[in-house]
């Protein structure tokens, strides 16, 4: 994986519910610290776009999907446990 490859994330949230707000804050902080200028985050509010959540097979919020670089991976929850979570997304080596 290239050191400068752009990272694309999509975060499914439920409005401004507490865990969703926490997930947005955690992801934003992580990307700013570790992936500066190498990331793009799309936020999808399932309250506003329920059909999209259904089409993307999102059964819980918050859910983060790493779209690129491949492989596509997803993780559910507030993203508070940073090292294990980003290791699980396959980001460990990329950000070190």
């Amino acid at each position, binding site marked *: 994986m290239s050191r400068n490859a752009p990272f694309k994330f999509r975060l499914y949230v439920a*409005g401004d*519910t507490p865990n969703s707000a926490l997930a947005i804050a955690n992801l934003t902080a992580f990307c700013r610290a570790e992936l500066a200028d190498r990331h793009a985050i799309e936020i999808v509010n*399932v309250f506003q776009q329920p*059909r999209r959540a*259904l089409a993307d097979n999102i*059964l819980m919020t*918050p859910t983060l999907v790493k779209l690129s670089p491949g492989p596509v991976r997803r993780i559910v*929850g507030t993203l508070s446990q940073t090292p294990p979570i980003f290791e699980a997304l396959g980001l460990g080596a990329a950000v070190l």
Partner: protein
Amino acid sequence: MNAKITWCPWEANEEIAALITTLHETEQRLENLTAGEIDTVADRTGRMILLRHAQEQLRANDAVKQAAILNALPAQIALLDVQARIVSANDAWLRLAGTNAVGGAGYEIGQQCLQIADGLTGTDSSDTRRIAAGIQSVLNGSAKSYSIEYPCHSPTEQSWFLTIVSPLAADHSNGAVVMRMDVTERRRLETEVIEATSREQQRFALDLHDVLAQDLVGLSLLAAAAARQSRAAAAVNASDLEQIAAIAAKTCNDARTMAHGLAPVGIASGNLETALRRLAKETRELHAIGVSVTADGYSASNIETQTAEHLYRIAQEAVWNAVKHAQCRRAVISVNVRNAWVCLTIRDDGRGITPGKSTSGIGVKLMHYRANLIGGHLSIDSQRNGGTRIRCVCPAS
């Protein structure tokens, strides 16, 4: 739709109780499975459930937002149920509860507004009863909304309030919102404007009586004397005719001056710039102060007459303040018109505004009031190199 349940068999009660238990257990199991990290869950058909903690948080967030909005408003606001009981209120209302300013004590959460009105006696009771009747008319749907402006004086202070009652829902079935605003300042300024107009009319009447009327009497006497001489076949004295002409010319001039004072913009020369130049000239002559006028993008047709009148009065007050209070040597009045907006600025080189000193005299308040009347905004500040700058920005029409 509200279905009214009149009969329910024991078996149904049992089943309802069992379902509620299942709901709670399901919710608890979902919370446990997701370790409290999840807000919503959905099945594969997209049916979504918002978990309890998220529901509570959303409710709390909404309540905080609503309270913040209501508390930010410059009014006392209460929400009434269909029985006119106060079910919630903003901080301003709660601070006011128990004081005389709302027309009676006891306007607290849970109180019934209409009963309070029934128990009142005294000078404020008729207004309170009218408000109660207004609230009732909105709650029962006989009125779309209700508003009343009324005095609420204390022994030491005169106050005026405006109360507006609006239904919570279009069909008037969910209660009403009562909003009460202190309009004392606005009432005071309105009174001041009326009194200022009255003073102006009295001055005009005096001018008419003491100047125009006297001159016209003189003219009439001179003309009568000339007529008598003419009838006696004597030659009319040329100096008498010259005197008649001189008095007539003076009278015309006086009439113009009075008209300028009464309606400086509308009557004088039909435009704001001309009126401001006249104001500058008069100030120069009367007070030996250099006053100049600049106009950019201005033409008489692009400012509404009423707007021009108020802008002139603002400039007049500002120049008067500069002369009287700021002890300035020089002042500049500028009018700029851009994209249907007018900017009137009056700068002087006087003492400026003392930091911390209030600029709340009636003249300043009247300038703000006039700016509001024409949909504009007035600002007053000290300039870096000394002096004061007063600026009014408003729509041209």
